[in-house]
């Protein structure tokens, strides 16, 4: 069959292809910076280096959106990456406390953190049979939240950033998990405050200043429930 294409259609298709090509390139470049920054921020120790890298990625994302390219919305990008960083930060610290509690790095960093803000990570550290933090209830939180909440949150954030429907759905689920985690954990901090804040360098205010950054689940819930679900794909 002899197929002919009108010149105007050919031009517009070519323009569209170019547009998608440019959009894909811009998204890839922004993600490269964002992901590198997020990975460094997720380790905590490399955070000061990761933050400017992350900001550079975010500015590339904003620029691409302003230029009219077909890229991931900035708000989806920000919510997705913040949740991923929050999940990574929690996973890393608690995984160290759970399985590497006798390593030199852990005994140095976590007990220093304990000495500064939260004596749950200093008081009788490594004295229980399970090792790591000995504060009342702490290990139960580690066991419940690390494999269920934070691992799932990390997977959900990746699906969300890929604009998959399951990513959006699991973000909703795991952000509500986050509410349970925060309500319980803050109650624990208050009930056992005499253990956790006694003789630390910055009691109460220090812990809150540091931990308030983990509040991303609450910030994300209204957005996740009001965003247009049609922007997420089934495939």
């Amino acid at each position, binding site marked *: 069959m002899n197929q002919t294409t009108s010149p105007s259609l050919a031009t517009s298709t070519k323009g569209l292809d170019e547009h998608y090509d440019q959009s894909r390139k811009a998204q890839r470049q922004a993600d490269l910076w964002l992901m590198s920054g997020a990975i460094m921020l997720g380790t905590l120790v490399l955070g000061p280096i990761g933050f400017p890298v992350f900001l550079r990625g975010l500015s590339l994302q904003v620029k691409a959106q302003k230029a009219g390219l077909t890229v991931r919305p900035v708000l989806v990008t920000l919510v997705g990456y913040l949740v991923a960083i929050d999940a990574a930060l929690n996973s890393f610290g608690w995984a160290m406390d759970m399985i590497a509690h006798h390593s030199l790095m852990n005994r140095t960093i976590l007990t220093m953190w304990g000495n500064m803000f939260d004596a749950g990570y200093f008081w009788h550290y490594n004295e229980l049979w399970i090792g790591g933090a000995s504060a009342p209830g702490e290990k139960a939180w580690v066991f419940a939240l690390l494999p269920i909440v934070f691992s799932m949150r990390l997977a959900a954030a990746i699906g969300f950033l890929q604009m998959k429907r399951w990513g959006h759905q699991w973000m909703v689920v795991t952000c509500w998990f986050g*509410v349970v985690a925060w309500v319980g954990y*803050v109650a624990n901090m*208050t009930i056992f*405050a005499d253990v956790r804040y*006694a003789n630390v360098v910055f*009691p*109460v205010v220090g812990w809150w200043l540091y931990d308030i950054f983990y509040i991303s689940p609450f910030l994300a*819930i209204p957005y996740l429930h009001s965003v247009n679900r049609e922007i997420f794909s089934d495939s």
Partner: protein
Amino acid sequence: MKNEQFINRQDLKRKRALIAFQILMYGYLLTMFLVQMYMYSVRDW
């Protein structure tokens, strides 16, 4: 038209519920913070 009104009403209800949830959650966190600050002021930490 009726359907549109229903969706708007549902949307409004959802927004209100989300605002109520935010107030509840931040209220809880603030209360816990204030309880801890009170403890800090009366204890020998």
